[in-house]
């Protein structure tokens, strides 16, 4: 078997330009690896189309960095003519008639979509275990969770099945699996990447992000997929080159580390790694100071109220009438709704819809939802205050390394607490990246989270790349 997919994108690009390899070589290698792998990273493979496209590209000039590069797409991003299930029985046969905006951009760059990756059902979960298609396995230890909900995208990159993947992050769903599988995952500023075509979980929190092996490739992929889209009213117009500060020195940078991130919930193995990094940064001329960020300790609860409230409304459309699963067991309209939704959704999704509906009911909306929106603003302000004095915030991505599959499968609360360090960023709409910074004694990856003010991804990439290149506790 060839081994081009472990190379960097720039190296692959050179090989393509120099006609040392053809896109079909990359495609064949990806499918060979996927077929040999037992990680359950993919729900649907796009083999026929991928091979066809690779052949077509043979006669075309290599006109950009991503030309002919295989990519995997999380299965909650719609792809025209390619099943998009959101890992739910509800959409097991859903064949979208349109492409998400990110997919259009990926196709315009002539990238080759290898397949749709496994995930928690409707992105609801942080272990990958709520998928209708079964759990995805962690390549570092197949008895461990890979994290979620972008489980398959993280695993596909981590196991070199594809060089790049796209995930989505509502409350850590790109960063947490990236941390647990040792890859680079970015949740950009809310609005950086168009959500058009992303099956909504919580509209005000959802954001699509790149998942890659290296920091530079992450920035390059974000260059490709970001930008204002008239189809997403919350998208923002920017033409940043996210790689532009990569390679710049970090001397004189001021970095905050919230005390909340280094408290008792954080496992010693993680804490030690973060302390090593702090030491490393200080040795490289960076000021690192412990800070208190008011209100972020409420993030988990706010997240549940806001995300589940929005989810209960976003997932109302799945009724089997126009598309998707339809129960054949009903006598009237209510029966149709009840049975279709009872049979089509998994337990976790149903739990979240029920909680969300309760939260938004006229009796409770003021008590929970509207109050949560107010505190959300306070969290935003808390972060803004920190960024008045600091360039970046760092901390662990997760409280611990990957744990055993099945351990907390039916413990919803555990799932939310796994996300305790990642959800504040979604609530504040900020960008944050998880960077692999080393492994535990039992060889499980540890992620460092780097957070910046809104629209300042370039500085995140600057620091992340510096650590990636110079910190020795890494891989």
């Amino acid at each position, binding site marked *: 078997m060839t081994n081009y997919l472990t190379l960097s994108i720039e190296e692959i690009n050179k090989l393509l330009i120099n006609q040392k390899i053809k896109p079909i070589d990359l495609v064949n290698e990806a499918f060979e690896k996927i077929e040999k792998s037992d990680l359950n990273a993919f729900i649907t493979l796009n083999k026929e189309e991928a091979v066809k496209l690779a052949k077509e590209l043979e006669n075309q000039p290599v006109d950009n960095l991503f030309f002919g590069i295989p990519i995997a797409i999380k299965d909650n*991003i*719609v792809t025209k003519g390619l099943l*998009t299930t*959101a890992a739910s029985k509800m*959409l097991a046969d*859903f064949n*979208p*008639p*349109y492409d*998400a905006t990110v997919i259009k951009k990926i196709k315009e760059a002539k990238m080759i979509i290898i397949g749709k990756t496994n995930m928690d059902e409707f992105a609801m979960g942080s272990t990958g275990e709520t998928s209708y298609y079964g759990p995805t396995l962690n390549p570092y230890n197949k008895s461990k969770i890979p994290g979620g909900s972008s489980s398959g995208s993280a695993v596909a990159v981590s196991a070199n099945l594809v060089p790049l993947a796209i995930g989505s992050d509502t409350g850590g769903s790109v960063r947490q699996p990236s941390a647990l599988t040792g890859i680079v995952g970015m949740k950009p500023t809310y609005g950086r990447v168009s*959500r*058009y*075509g*992303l*099956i*909504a979980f*919580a*509209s*005000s929190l959802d954001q699509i992000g790149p998942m890659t092996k290296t920091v530079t490739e992450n920035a390059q992929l974000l260059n490709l997929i970001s930008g204002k889209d*008239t*189809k*997403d*009213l*919350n998208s923002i117009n920017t033409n940043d080159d996210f790689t532009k500060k990569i390679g710049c020195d970090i001397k004189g940078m001021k970095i905050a580390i919230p005390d909340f991130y280094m408290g008792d919930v954080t496992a010693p193995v993680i804490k030690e790694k973060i302390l090593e990094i702090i030491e490393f940064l200080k040795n490289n001329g960076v000021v690192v100071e412990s800070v208190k960020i008011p209100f972020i300790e409420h993030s988990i609860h706010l997240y549940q109220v806001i995300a589940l*409230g*929005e989810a*209960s*409304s976003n997932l*109302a*459309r*799945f*009724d089997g*009438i*126009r*598309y998707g699963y339809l129960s054949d067991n009903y006598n009237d*309209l209510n029966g149709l*709704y009840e049975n279709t939704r009872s049979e089509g959704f998994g337990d976790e999704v149903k739990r979240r819809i029920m909680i969300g*509906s309760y939260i*938004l*009911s*006229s*009796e409770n*909306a003021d008590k929970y*939802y509207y109050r949560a929106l107010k505190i959300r603003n306070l969290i935003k302000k808390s972060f803004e205050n920190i960024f008045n004095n600091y360039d970046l915030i760092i901390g662990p991505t997760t409280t611990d390394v990957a744990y055993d599959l099945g351990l907390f499968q039916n413990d919803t609360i555990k799932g939310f607490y796994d996300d305790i360090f990642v959800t504040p960023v979604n609530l504040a709409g900020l960008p944050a990246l998880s960077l692999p910074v080393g492994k535990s004694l039992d060889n499980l990856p540890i992620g460092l989270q780097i957070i910046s003010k809104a629209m300042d991804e370039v500085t995140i990439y600057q620091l992340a790349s510096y650590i990636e290149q110079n910190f020795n506790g890494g891989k």
Partner: protein
Amino acid sequence: MGVNNMTYIPTIGIEVHVELNTQNKAFSPTINKYGDAANTLVNEIDLGLPGTLPTLNKEMIDFGIKAAMALNCKINQKMYFERKNYFYPDNSKNFQITQGKTPIGYDGYITVEVDNQLVKVEIERIHLEEDTAKSIHEQDKTYLDFNRAGVPLIEIVTKPMITNSEIAIKYLEKLKEILLYLGVSDVKMEEGSMRCDANISVSKNDKLGIKTEVKNIGSIKNVGLAIDYEIERQINLLNNNEVLVEETRRFNDSNNQTIRMRIKETGNDYRYFPEPDIPYVNISDEWLSEIKATLPMLPDDIRLELANKQVNNNNIEALIGDIDALYFYLAIKNRIINPVSAINLIITDLKAYSNNLNKKIINLLQLEDFIEIANDLANKVYSKQMVKRLLEEIIINKLDITDAKAMVNQKESFNIEEIVVNILNNNFEAINDYKAGKDRALKYLMGQVMKETKGVADAVEVQKVMLDKLSKL
């Protein structure tokens, strides 16, 4: 009506849904059009497919502002949309995008005239929302047409302060007229682009009674009938010591009665919350002034202005009752010398051509040509008869105005005196009859002259010449 009616005071509130005739749908770029083949004006957003997001149609907001201004409303310059969550097959996302806490307009009114008295009907709110798909029920099946899904609507809600069906009818007629003149909707109740619900209760004191809602009444006249029926029904029940329940009813136009559809369920909870996919809309002062500048004259302003210009009431109403004619008039009104004669030409001659040729008035002839002709008439350059000839040459024979005038002038260039003398010389018998006092003879002679001049001669002038010649014979 029952004997005790006087002691009960009815309270009526009216909700009207109006489809806006914007180019595109409210929250998707799909064309907004009525009457096309089912499910042809549909995209992925209208169907609520997974992953879709709403766009926002600025024209809808423009139209909303226009309506709010015309209904004397205050405007929420910082407004947002909300989701109203409920399951129904015609509701593709199972939530409707609407406005809750920040309606585009609020605290407005319309003034109507009832029994020579002006009554202010207060408007509580006017908000923007999207229409649902259309359900077509056939036997045991329901079909859905998503062409209507996402068509922009405004909902206009009065305060519960209307006291009888006559005010309700006048309010609806006035509302319809205003919206039509604003150009924001075609307000056709038969096509569903205007739909009315009435909330009716009766009470003996200040505390409002238990209300019923009569849904989707098909015509303004039926709104009146439904209200009258409901008031009487409720009073009769109360007089029989029966307890009213809050319920939704529909109007049956075959017997002019209302029928229960369902008792209002408690706990019908729409779980409103701000639509996270649409940012807040800030309507700037500049935006408002821009819209204000495009507001057409509203019917009541036009009535006043025309009355001041001595146009008689029948002609005013004929003009206002025909939007095509009115738009034509409004386009020329600042450049005509005599509105009375010009309006007369529009509502009689132009209207007749418009009907016969099945063309809009505006498309019959150039505005400039009409202005010139109307002013020639006002300045007595041409007689009424000649103007009719001119219009015929231009509209029917497609001459340009110079050629048309030349044609009419040529026909007018004959010498009336010469023709009259000629006719008299050939009709001795008629002259004798005239002298014998037979009125018919004069008419006959006049007719001969008119025939000779192909009807173009000015009859008054012909008669004058004729009588003069006859007296000298």
